[in-house]
């Protein structure tokens, strides 16, 4: 199998350094750029399998880079942002970024998210009939859901939510995305509905909300299904 190529667009050299070292240690091939414009060119020229994009670049707004990229590519993108810039992260996700990391971050979490994104784009990207993650199994044909073998009975919207999360295990989904998928575009500001629904689903799945095994909250951004070991 071809080794995976990762492009890092980040202006801080020491961050690029530890990213390169860690990624190469996991057999990724790493390319780097300090600037947004150059990064876009490299995306076009070298066709990486994944992009790590810092939102605070000196020459261009990271969001702009993302917008331009999404005009012609659906390359998986993880954006790097600072804490308390929640709105920026949500904007990036809504514009097509697939996940985010908040600086300062430890590299193990980044590696986990990279794995998740690359797995999603694996060669077997035809729609599967069964979705599973960490003991949860959802059969899309029979609509049967089991957890560690035990049958779980879900209401309509609870099923929809779990389906959405299971389709992208480990990846963050913004509130707006989830609300739009489940309630439609008119209700995509109503976080209250979503919180209540998540609560119900967690109860059905036997998930401890203060230390959830399945449904994790990305505060101020959205939800993700815990990546699970695969």
């Amino acid at each position, binding site marked *: 199998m071809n080794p995976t190529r990762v492009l890092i667009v980040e202006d801080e050299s020491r961050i690029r350094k530890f990213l390169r070292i860690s990624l190469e240690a996991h057999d990724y091939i790493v390319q780097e750029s300090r600037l947004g414009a150059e990064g876009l060119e490299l995306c076009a020229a070298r066709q990486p399998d994944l992009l790590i994009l810092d939102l605070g670049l000196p020459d261009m707004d990271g969001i702009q880079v993302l917008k331009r990229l999404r005009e012609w590519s659906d390359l998986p993108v993880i954006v790097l942002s600072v804490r308390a810039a929640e709105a920026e992260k949500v904007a990036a996700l809504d514009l097509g970024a697939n996940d985010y990391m908040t600086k300062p971050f430890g590299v193990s979490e980044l590696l986990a998210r990279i794995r998740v994104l690359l797995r999603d784009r694996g060669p077997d990207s035809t729609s599967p009939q069964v979705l599973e993650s960490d003991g949860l199994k959802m059969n899309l044909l029979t609509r049967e859901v089991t957890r560690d073998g035990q049958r779980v009975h879900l209401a309509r919207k609870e099923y929809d939510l779990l389906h959405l999360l299971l389709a992208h295990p480990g990846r963050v989904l913004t509130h707006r995305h989830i609300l739009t998928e489940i309630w439609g575009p008119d209700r995509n500001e109503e976080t209250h509905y979503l919180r209540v629904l998540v609560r119900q689903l967690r109860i059905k799945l036997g998930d401890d*909300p*203060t230390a959830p095994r399945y449904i994790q909250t990305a505060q*101020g951004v959205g939800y993700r299904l815990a990546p699970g070991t695969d």
Partner: protein
Amino acid sequence: MKQAQTHEPSSALAMPHWKAYFIALASVIITTGLAFMLHRVLPLASLSLLFLTGILIVSARLGLRAGLAASILSFLAYNFFFTTPLHTFAVHDDGDVATLLFFLIMATISGNLAARMHREMRQRQDSLHRISKMFEFGRRMSSAAQTGQVLTALVDELAEELNSPVAVLVPGDDGQWREAARTSSAAVPLESVQEAWDRASDEPLALDGRLFLKLGAGPVAMVVVDRAPGQQEAQDLARSFCDQAAIALDRTLLASDLDEARVATEREQLRTALLSSLSHDLRTPLASVIGSTSSVLECGAAISEDDRNELLRNTLEEARRLDRYIQNLLDMTRIGQGGLSLERNWVELHDIVSGATARLDLVPGQFPLTVDIPRDFPLLWVHGALLEQALVNLLDNATRYSPRDGHIGITARQQGDQAIIEVTDQGPGIPPGEREKVFDMFYTASDSGDSLGTGLGLAICRGMVAAHAGSVAAGEGPGGKGTRMRITLPLAQHSGPVPER
């Protein structure tokens, strides 16, 4: 809206002239009619008194001119209808001439008296009015707490009394004039203000149809009346209002100076505390980071892999601690400036707790941490990140002062329309006298040997909870040991249940 007082000439009463003359004529006709009815019964002399009565009444009510008119008309009627030769205007008798004369004199005297009486009554009313206005204004001045209020009251009062737009201008340090208060239609003549300022003394100055008055000891400002009143009286009135305002201004300006001084002192104190905290609390974790990593580099293969990993773990922990401290500093500056803008949303308390424990690397079940929050605890309408930070700070404290196997608890319950969230630990506890002081900025427990805390955590916690109209208090832990930190937050209602599609 009150109408402005106008001061009319003394002889006219509140009635147009033609109307007065008409009434005079009418009364003479009535009197003549009466005289006809009575002239067989009464002697001629009495008839003249009848006419005189009519004249007196007209004169007293309608003023001098009408009275004179009535007296002339009365004489003519009396002469024509009642004196010999009848039906002529000829006068034969000396007595008749005298009658006419007396008619005229009576009319004049009573007319004058009446006019004077009216005038004095009006003047008295005006005086009373003015006095009560001054009194009212005086009250407003003494109760005004701020300079702005004083100036606004002044322009409103002057505008009403002088029936003109009014503005107050203050000179800036750069020589530019800017307006401090004005009525809505006032035009601000920036060019003429400087000239008026240079020329004017303590007395009001009339210039280009406007009236300029200097305001306050200093003086501090210039009052500009768009339409200068003609009378001296009005100018004097304006001056008295300005004098009263000046007294109030002395007071309000002094008060705001004191306020500024106080704020400046507080800011200075905070800065000092911040600098000393920075110096210590930034350097301490850095000392570990630099020490640990340089050890790894220096000793290389000479140290075991376990030791090396431990040093690196220390480095990571201390660096994270530094990160939390920096976050606290940032939060503190935001709170200090009153600049905490809340982006509220519906937040699950459980999520806040799991976020907070994750940031501190606490795992319920591993560390002796128990979480007891009902599954259906109401959603909070709060700014999630801020509340999480508040909880992180409380937990940080709890873990820091907890003994090795000490139990830490997080509980929550609903009480009416309040949420009560508590963090308990089994540490040394906080003495009653210090339970408020711990929330002061940069306060650290003095008996804590290696002062682990930065002293900011609790202050920030309080700031963030207070921004949500909540409160946080320290108390005795369960069983009388340790500490219980209690956060109280108002709960909000969401309208309606979750809709099905």
